[in-house]
């Protein structure tokens, strides 16, 4: 509140006062508002719409979800009674939920480290390039700005077991064709690799910015002291990149815990509803499972309970990472 009030005050003092009708001016002292209060009021007025929007569209539905999770809330039933924690108890015995939870952890465990490693590698190489740095950046960033649905379908076709491009390549090299998205052990990896591929551009851009921040003098000093290129990277650049790495790790973790679009489009039956989440649920993530429970089976109460669990998990992970992120870095 304070900064916005201050800034608006600054504005009013520097800007020429608008000509006000005399009766207006006479009225204001009677209302008893000081200039400070009035500018604060303006500040509130300006943020009231985004604030209301945020409360109505973000906070209120989230609170409703808590309420719904305590009910037998089926969209087709008029009666939606409270059933206490039954939905949460049911979660404990739901194999589908635990399978989805396990997959979601796997997605994060694959996607985040792979994106960080590949992103840092590519960014370091691009930084070394003397020419066409912008062009490299653009090429890597292109998939990121391509719609995920389109990307997913293209990869779905590339991964096709019969006649798919990847298998054609394997066959022409004399290797055994793979089931890819039809393989119980491969489907999740395929989806995760597409997520990494598509998001890489974002990681690269953020890493490039991080690398620019590393003072050149430090690296120069280390080189003069006889450090090898690797030593400079390992002991100078990497520690100074800590904030960037942690920022990307937090963002990547949250994003991969919420993975949805790629799974919906790469691993569902032709008709959409059939065989959602790959063969035997091998690519099923929590969010897809929640969607299926809510919108195919109309069990909103049960789905909300899962949402609450996911929310708590993401909150916990974020708090832990935030603690690490706020660690000051000494330059």
């Amino acid at each position: 509140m304070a900064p916005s009030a201050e800034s608006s005050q600054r504005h009013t003092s520097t800007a020429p006062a608008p000509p006000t009708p005399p009766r207006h001016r006479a009225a204001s002292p009677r209302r008893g508002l000081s200039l400070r209060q009035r500018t604060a009021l303006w500040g509130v007025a300006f943020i009231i719409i985004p604030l209301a929007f945020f409360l109505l569209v973000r906070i209120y539905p989230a609170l409703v979800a808590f309420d719904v999770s305590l009910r037998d809330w089926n969209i087709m039933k008029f009666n939606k009674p409270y059933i206490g924690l039954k939905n949460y108890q049911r979660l404990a015995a739901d194999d589908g939920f635990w399978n989805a939870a396990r997959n979601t952890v796997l997605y994060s465990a694959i996607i985040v480290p792979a994106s960080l490693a590949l992103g840092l590698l590519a960014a370091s190489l691009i930084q070394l390039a003397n020419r066409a740095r912008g062009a490299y950046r653009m090429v890597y960033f292109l998939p990121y700005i391509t719609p995920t649905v389109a990307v997913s379908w293209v990869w779905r076709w590339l991964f096709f077991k019969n006649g798919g491009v990847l298998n054609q390549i394997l066959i022409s090299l004399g290797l055994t064709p793979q089931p890819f998205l039809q393989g119980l052990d491969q489907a999740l990896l395929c989806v995760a690799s597409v997520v990494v591929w598509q998001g890489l551009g974002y990681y690269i851009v953020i890493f490039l910015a991080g690398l620019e921040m590393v003072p050149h003098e430090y690296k120069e000093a280390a080189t003069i002291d006889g450090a090898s290129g690797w030593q400079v990277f390992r002991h100078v650049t990497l520690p100074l990149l800590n904030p960037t790495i942690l920022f990307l790790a937090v963002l990547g973790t949250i994003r991969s815990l919420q993975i949805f679009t790629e799974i919906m489009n790469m691993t569902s039956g032709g008709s959409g509803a059939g065989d959602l989440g790959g063969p035997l649920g091998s690519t099923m993530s929590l969010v897809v499972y929640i969607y299926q429970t809510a919108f195919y089976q109309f069990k909103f109460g049960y789905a909300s309970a899962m949402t609450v669990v996911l929310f708590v998990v993401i909150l916990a992970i974020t708090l832990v990472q935030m603690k690490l992120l706020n660690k000051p870095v000494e330059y």
Partner: protein
Amino acid sequence: MKTTFSRVLLVSVVAALLVALAVSHVGAQTITVEYWQYYYESKVVLIDELIKEFEAKNPGIKIDHKTFPYEQFNQKVAISVPAGSGPDVVNLFYGWVPKYVEAGYLQPLPEKDFPVATIERDFVPMVDSIKLEGKYWGLPTAVRALALFWNKDHFKAAGLDPEKPPTTWEQLQEYAIKLTQRDRAGQLVQSGFAWNADGQDWHVFIQVLLRQWGVTPYSADNKKVLWNSNQGGYDAFKWWTELATKHKVGEPTFMGDYRTAFIAGKASMMIDGSFALGTLKSKAQDINWGVTTLPVRAANPTVQANFGSFWLNSLTVKAQGAKRDAAVKWLQFLTSPEVMKRWLTDVGELPARTALAEDKALLSDPQYGPFLAGLKYAYATFFIDETAERQAVIDATNEVLLRGTDPKVALDALVRKEQAIRDEYYK
């Protein structure tokens, strides 16, 4: 100036009152019935034509026709239930009816307008799947059945008679093996039979294979799943999955889905519904295909079976009083023999009245004939939760196909899952 203004005001108020009065007067005479269906072009065009004719014959009734994309339709209808909004007459898939009845969304057809005895005399037997609590909760205009499609050119190339499709499952298996082609890497190039679980074949397993292997799939009250109640059930499941595991005549996701594979000329046989005829006629012009009735078992040739399904038109609880009377008239019109005949020619779906289904001229039609023949012995599965029930079958076949689970173990687990879905509904 002030007086002019008040005069203008007065005149406008009087005019507005008069208009409102006129509108309310018209409103008292005209009853609007809201009708919902999903968007399917030929259906939408025909219903619009039918509405014009119906309104001409029934002055004072207006039909308000609304459509939604197929993917969202069930959700739209479901959401309109608690909101208390939505249609007076709604087009529903028969498998959804139990849920909507349980939700208190539908009203049974009035006995005086649609006597139960008359329905059972005039309509094909599968409509009994929407008879709940001894009442009918809607009626179809058209129904669908399954049949076997085959690619005549593939038959010729494999040395088979292109005009003689298989009549038994044993023949189907034998031909499918002959028709299947793989490349040097072992990749499927031509599938002898477009094997799938998520398309139509899971219905074939439940209503056709099980019955022909001597199993009645559900108890008479539909509360018990009996697929593994005797050895026949295990044998049927084993035979079905062995087409993919042992004989390898098809793969579930070959070319994306079974129909695409057939249309692309990459699958020699497939089982599909009458609703596929339209797509085949427009998209499979390059291939020389035929359609015939579903095979039987050589050991048991008299037991014929088919899977039927349909979309029905139901009255919602929203239609009361004069509105219900108007909605009933609309419903009677939609289920009349004249409309059914036009539905067959314009939309390509089979008539739901027995008299039409047994029409000699229609039966001899090379494309519709096999489907109409199948209607006599078609069973519609009483679904509780179609999506979940289908997923359970897909998972069971994947257990066998991808994990190498013993079909017997997989079938037992499948029956447990299907039974749990029913138990939750009937608890």
